[in-house]
């Protein structure tokens, strides 16, 4: 079983609950609980301290290309072990999107 490196504290304004987790990999992999969809038109971004931005991606998306159908991944950066993750999530039971921004380490 892959170890989940860290549960991320999602800093949404409405819900201070963890929605997304990152598996250390390699590659780095975003996992979400059932019912949480990641917006594929706005690829998740990992911002590193030196200004580098890594984008998560997956070739598998829903037919309308709106959401990832498989966990998006990114190659782990050399050296850096922490950063800021941005993810646009759209819960399947709801009809809106919201942004998560959180500090992560792996």
């Amino acid at each position: 079983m892959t170890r989940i490196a860290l549960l991320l504290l999602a800093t949404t304004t409405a819900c201070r609950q963890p929605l997304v987790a990152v598996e250390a990999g390699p590659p780095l992999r975003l996992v979400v609980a059932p019912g949480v969809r990641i917006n594929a038109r706005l690829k998740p971004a990992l911002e590193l301290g030196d200004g580098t931005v890594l984008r998560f991606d997956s070739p598998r998306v829903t037919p309308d290309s709106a959401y990832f159908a498989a966990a998006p991944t990114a190659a782990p950066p050399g050296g850096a072990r922490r950063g800021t993750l941005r993810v646009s999530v759209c819960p399947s039971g709801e009809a809106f999107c919201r942004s998560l921004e959180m500090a992560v380490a792996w």
Partner: protein
Amino acid sequence: MLAGVVAGTTAAMRRLPLTPGVGGNPAPELTNTSWLNSDQPLRLSELRGRVVLLNFWVFTCGNCTRTVPSLVAYDRLYRERGLTIIGIHTPEFPPYAGEHDKGNLTRALGRQGITYPNAQDNGRRTWDAYGIRYWPSFVLIDKRGMIRYTGYGEFHLGDGDFREWERRIQQLLAE
């Protein structure tokens, strides 16, 4: 364990929380400087006498783009009767994601057949002034410049939410 936490989170969310204000609160003025489908920046103070529907959206949001056909329909049906729809295009991510780019927004408007005015809210000033949290969100303003209804969430041509927003538009147009 994670799944349980998330399920509890989403269940707590509510769609379309309505603010059916009788008198309403004054709508914060628009201060955006970059506009599309408008020759000049629009100001609410210059739209007194018209009903204004603000749509907070971003072209990378599927929930937003799937709602656009409904807004295009309202624009077609009610513009000449006194409705002004204004898109407030508010990026989710920093500029590296391309949402701030005016060319990208121009192309998105073309793809969606949007001819009503859109403001670039790249600094989120209008988003913050209205206390918006979700994409898409809506604010309906009456002829006196008062906020009468707010809500959020995708809807579609002819569904219940579409009919409810249309009913509100008609109500304010009739006042």
